[in-house]
């Protein structure tokens, strides 16, 4: 099956002809060579492949590429504005909220979606909102601190 898929990716139009049932994760990583989006479990239970689709956090390993037809997709590569990090990226940097870095792209995009839905979440709401993201290095405490620090700030790209 060949389908014509068009969507906006990190602010730019993308058009591809491919099988629409393919998963967004592999289209991003292989066809578009945006390897910042990571494979972690393939079942939507670890959050490593999280991207934004129309501002909402989506597991790219579960989403058919046809499902983003006409939508806005943001991956980790599209979050900073030039050299200026998105406030959440900066907060993660400032708080040392990463170690191996493998879960970090999904973690940051999950946090972006969280703050878009709720500009000033409580600590409890942050914990609940991030519960679907696994980090094996144990950076959780610093990730929560980074999200708290970035809450209420605006900036970066969310289209």
């Amino acid at each position, binding site marked *: 099956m060949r389908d014509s898929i068009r969507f906006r990716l990190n602010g730019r139009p993308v058009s591809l002809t491919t099988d629409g049932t*393919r*998963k967004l994760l*592999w289209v991003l*990583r*292989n*066809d578009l*060579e*945006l*390897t*910042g*989006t*990571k*494979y*972690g*479990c*393939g*079942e939507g*239970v*670890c959050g*490593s492949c999280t991207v934004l689709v129309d501002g909402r956090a989506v597991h790219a390993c579960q989403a058919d590429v046809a499902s983003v037809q006409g939508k806005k997709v943001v*991956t*980790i*590569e599209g*979050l*900073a504005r030039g050299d200026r*990090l998105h406030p959440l*990226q900066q907060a*993660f*940097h*400032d708080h*040392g909220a*990463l*170690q*191996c*870095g*493998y*879960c*970090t*792209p999904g973690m*940051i995009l999950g946090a972006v979606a969280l703050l878009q839905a709720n500009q000033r979440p409580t600590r409890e709401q*942050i*914990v*609940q909102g*991030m*519960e679907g*993201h*696994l*980090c*094996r*290095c*144990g*950076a*959780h*405490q*610093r*990730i*929560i601190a980074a999200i708290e620090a970035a809450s209420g700030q605006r900036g970066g790209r969310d289209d």
Partner: protein
Amino acid sequence: MTDRARIRRRDFVKALGGGILVLVSLPSPGLVSDAAAQQRRGYPTDVNAYLHIAEDGKVTLYSGKIEMGQGVMTSLTQMAAEDLGVALESIHIVMGDTETCPFDAGTWGSLTTRMFGPAVRAAAAQARLILTDLAARRLGVPRAALSVENGVVFVTAARSRRVAFGELARGQRITHTVDERAVLRSVREFTVMGRSPKRLDGREKLTGAAKYTADIRLPGMLYARIVRPPAHGATLRRLDTSAAEAVAGVQVVNHDGLVAVLSPDWETSDRAVRLVRADWDVPAPAFDTESVFEHLVQAAPEGRTSESAGDVEAGRRLSARTFDVTYRHPYVAHAPMEPHAALAEVKDGKATVWASTQSPFGLQPQIARAIGFRAEDVRVITPYVGGGFGGKAACPQAAEAARLALAAGRPVQVALTRSEEFFYDTFDPAALVRVVSGMDAAGRLTLWDYQVYGAGDRGTEVFYDVPDRRVRVYGTWSGGGAAGYHLFGVGPWRAPGANTNRFAAEQQIDAMASAAGIDPLEFRLRNTKDPRMLAVLRAVGQASEWQPGAAPRRTGRGRGLACGIDAGTYVAHVAEVTVDRATGAVEVERVVCAQEMGIVVNPDGAKMQMEGCITMGLGYALAEEVRFEGGRILDTNFGTYALPRFSWVPRIETVLVPNDDLAPQGGGEPAIVTMGAVLANAIFDATGARMRRLPMTPERVLAEIRRG
């Protein structure tokens, strides 16, 4: 040094071009574990690091270590910058590339900062000395009149008389070797650095630019899905790959029994591999998650005594009370977020393999053997590693990828799925500990007769004052497989064996304190004279605002204490928990950790590792267990194998206890070793139930509460 090693060193030096090169020679045990093997492969046996100042002033540090999240890219660079006198940003570090970096056995054992750090500092200090001498000649002043700052040497009394490192290095071809004595001197001259720069790998990791092995793309590369058995020990009876081969773009390769489906995209390979019809003979299960412990005792290899003093029989007679308890630890997965991956390219008689490994130099001969190449014709490059914890000490995917690349004539990527990652993990071994201990009427320890099956001796060191003691060790934490003592491949898991051993030892001590009616902190302080242990115990007591009192209090809320030594570092933890006595669910509210690790190179980096250890430790303590039936692994993804999530994470407080008289000790592992025990002791205080088997799941806690 053999001729070959000498030639090899010359090649390295030549490849770097002109400038100033400082080689570090540190033939001490632990750092260079296998000199003979290195020599066979043509590496200089005695060089552990290079620091190069190029003619354009660029400074490059070459290290065989790898970065897997532990932050050594930053701490090594920081050390070099400090002693060389340049800004952190002006040093480039090359890690884990067998072509350009000096030999290194592997990144493990919390050794990098401890052993390798002093070598880097000595090299940097030497380079600074060479540059200062060159500047002295150029400026016509004595060395003592000069200062160094930000890569510039200047006359202290006349700052405008200055010359940059690059100018000094130009036209030079200086090679200098720093030896062990210089390194030890540099350890003595350490000043506490006490600064915590932001991670040098931070920006790349935050923007998605950081490349991990599975992110590397080569023209014409193919993605492999390998035909895997349903159980360990299974043998292939019949294979039909015709349906897979019929898929457009797919080729099936069979390299001496390694059967793989290859195509230019991962999804096609994944779809096609499901069309392969393979019939397997699976042996009848001999053991499972429950019966493995009998096997460990019955099949135990000859034991060895790792520690002995006095006479345990005499100790038994002197004991007013004895305690005979058995503790159990299951198979635990490493479960790094990045599954193992490798990408191999074979071209013109040379193989280049990118691999997610903690041991690039260890992989080199493995790959060579697998494809019939000489080791020197194999180059292993280590991109960022997405977590290792010991699990990436082994990376058989590198040889698989090389074999498939050779067979296919194109670059091949082997990246494990999560279920393959669980299946092929070299687990933290299932293990059993039996402790018989005793004390006199005053609560002084009189007997410690300790036997450990399957976990090895790390963490068994008796730092309590027990005159009559013995530690017997049956088997280790490595090896295993079909015919081995261990039922599955097992290997190092963050502080290998120590989590098992501290779980047993610190509960045993706690149980004795309780039986004596003595406060657990007081009991420990009374029974050890080790000044470093006393210091961390007092520090954790103070930081947690410990109130004296014997356990158990049985109020549903509890606090626990546990301590240990690992990688030269002393740790003590206090945990506060709430136990739901109706469900057995444990909520960890607070963990306080005091750690004394000698000189602290990067305090924030050290704390980050402590927090990571505590958080990761919640997993093996409360939930992680790889269940199996014979050779079948029943937990193959995070749906049933639970890792710690955000809601589990307590308030974590870390305290670094200063000891600037001691060289830096290990930091990546110590703070995890007591997590099982400290939570078990807190659960005991809350409920009166003793948890002698890991993990302490709600079902098990409830069962113990009901047993009373």
